[in-house]
C-alpha cells in the first residue's frame, strides 16, 4: 500500500493555486521551519467572496497537498463559509491522511483562518 492516497499524490504532484497574490488583502503564515512545516496563504477578497487564493508551502508531501486542497475548498466561496473550513474537511477531501500526518491538515486550516483574520483586521470587519 502506498503511503498516501491518489488524491494526496495528485495534489502534491500538481498543486493548485501555487504562488503569491501581490495585492492580497489577507495573508496568513503558520508553522515554523524548526518543525519542518510552514504554510503561507494569500487571499484576495472582494464583496465578501474569496476571488483568489494562493499558497506557498515549505513541508512534506501531505503539507503541500493539504495547502493545495484547502485553497480549492475555499476559492470562490463567501468568507463566512471559508471561516467554517476544518482540517477534517481538508483531510476528507484528500481521501484521508496517515494518522501522523493529520497535523498537516490542521496547519492548512490554521493558515486559512490566519489569513481571514488578517483580512478582518485590515478591513475592520
Amino acid at each position: 500500500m502506498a503511503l498516501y492516497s491518489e488524491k494526496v499524490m495528485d495534489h502534491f504532484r500538481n498543486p493548485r493555486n501555487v504562488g503569491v497574490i501581490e495585492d492580497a488583502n489577507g495573508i496568513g503564515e503558520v508553522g515554523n521551519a524548526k518543525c519542518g512545516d510552514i504554510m503561507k496563504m494569500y487571499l484576495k477578497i472582494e464583496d465578501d467572496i474569496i476571488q483568489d487564493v494562493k499558497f506557498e508551502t515549505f513541508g512534506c508531501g501531505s503539507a503541500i497537498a493539504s495547502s493545495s486542497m484547502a485553497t480549492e475548498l475555499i476559492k470562490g466561496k463567501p468568507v463566512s463559509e471559508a471561516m467554517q473550513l476544518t482540517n477534517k474537511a481538508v483531510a476528507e477531501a484528500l481521501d484521508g491522511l496517515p494518522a501522523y500526518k493529520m497535523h498537516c491538515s490542521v496547519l492548512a486550516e490554521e493558515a486559512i483562518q490566519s489569513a481571514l483574520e488578517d483580512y478582518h483586521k485590515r478591513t475592520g470587519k
Partner: protein
Amino acid sequence: MIYADNAATTKMSPAAIHTMTTLLEEAWGNPSSLYEHGQKAKEVLEQARADVAGVIGAEPREIIFTSGGSEADNQAIRSAAALGKKNGKMHIISTAFEHHAVLHTLEALKKEGFEITLLDVHSDGLVVPEEVEAAIREDTCLVTIMFANNEIGTIQPIREIGAICRRKGVLFHTDAVQAIGHIPVDVKADNIDMLSSSAHKFHGPKGVGFLYVRKGIKVSNLIEGGAQEGGKRAGTENVAGIAAMATALKEINAKMEENAEHLIKMRDKLICGLYEIPHAALNGDACQRLPGNVNFCFEGIEGESLLLLLDDKGIQASSGSACTSGSLDPSHVLLAIGRVHDVAHGSLRLTIGEDITEEQVDYIIQSVKDVVRYLRSFSPVWRDLCAGKSKFIL
C-alpha cells in the same frame, strides 16, 4: 529505476540467493541433530562461520550468529555492561550519532544506574581519538563507537580508538554494520574486542547477522534456551540464511577494492554535481567517508517532498527529515554534527550501489537540481531567505 538507498538495505546477490534456496532444499536438518541430515546442516553452519571469521581476521569460535545488527549491538553492550557491573565499573563511552540499536540500549542501561558519556562527533562527523582517551575513567567498562555512520557515512579512526582502549584495559565494541564488505575491517589489526554486522547491508538476506567477540571475553545471553552458538545464543540456527550471508560476504570482500574505486569516483562526481546547487552542503567529512555515501542538506526545502518527487523520477533515496521518520525531530545524526533543525529537515541521503553508472549519476544530479529548484519556487522559507528577511545558513 535507480536504487540509491543501499544503506537501508541491499538487493541480495544471485549467488547468495542460490546458496539460500539450495540449502533450504538440501540442508534443512537441525544442526544439533546427530543423524546425517543434521550433521550436514552443522557442516554448512561451521563452514559459514569459518568463512565469515576469515573475512574479518577472526577465529571461527569468535563468531556468534544473530538475527542481525541490532541484536548483535544489544548483546555486545549488555555483555560488557554485565562484566562492568560485576567489577563496579558502570561508565560507558559512546557517541551522539550511533545507531538507535546502540543509543536505546545505552538509555536502558542508564535507567539501570550506568553513566553514559556521549562524545562529540564535531561538524565533520568524526570522533577524535584523544577525546576518547580523555573520557576514559577508572570505572569505564566499555567504549562503543560505530565503524562508519549509517547516515553520513563518516569512517571513524577505529584502529586508534581500539589501541587506546586496549592500552587502558577497556572493552571496545564497534557497530560495523555499514562498514563490513565495503571497507577493510580486521578485528585484530583494528584492536576490536566486539563487532556487530548485518548481512542485508552487503547483499545477504535480512534477519541474519553476527557478533564477533574476542576469545576470553565473557558474553551474556539475550536469548536463553538451547546450547546453540556455544551456549551464547539459543534458538535453532537459520542455516540457509547464515550460509547465504557467508556467500555474500566472501563475494563482496573479493571485489572490495574494485568496488570502492568505482564507487568513490561516482560518489565524488555526485558530490561535485550537487554542490552546484546554491545553498547546499555536504554532511560529514568528504574524504573519511564510505565509498557509496552522499548526504546533503538543501536550504529552504523539506526532505520528504524531495524524496517523493525523486521517486517519481525513478530515484529511490532517503532523508533525515522529521517527516520521513514519523517524529517531530529531524535526524539525530544531523543534529549531532551541528546542523540546525531548519536545515536538517532538508536533507537527502544517496547511498549508491556497486553497479551504478556514470549516466545514472548524471541523471541523479540533474533530477535533484530540478526538484530542489521546483520546491524552492514555492517555499516561503526560500522566499524569505532570498528577500533577506532571514539569513542563509548554508
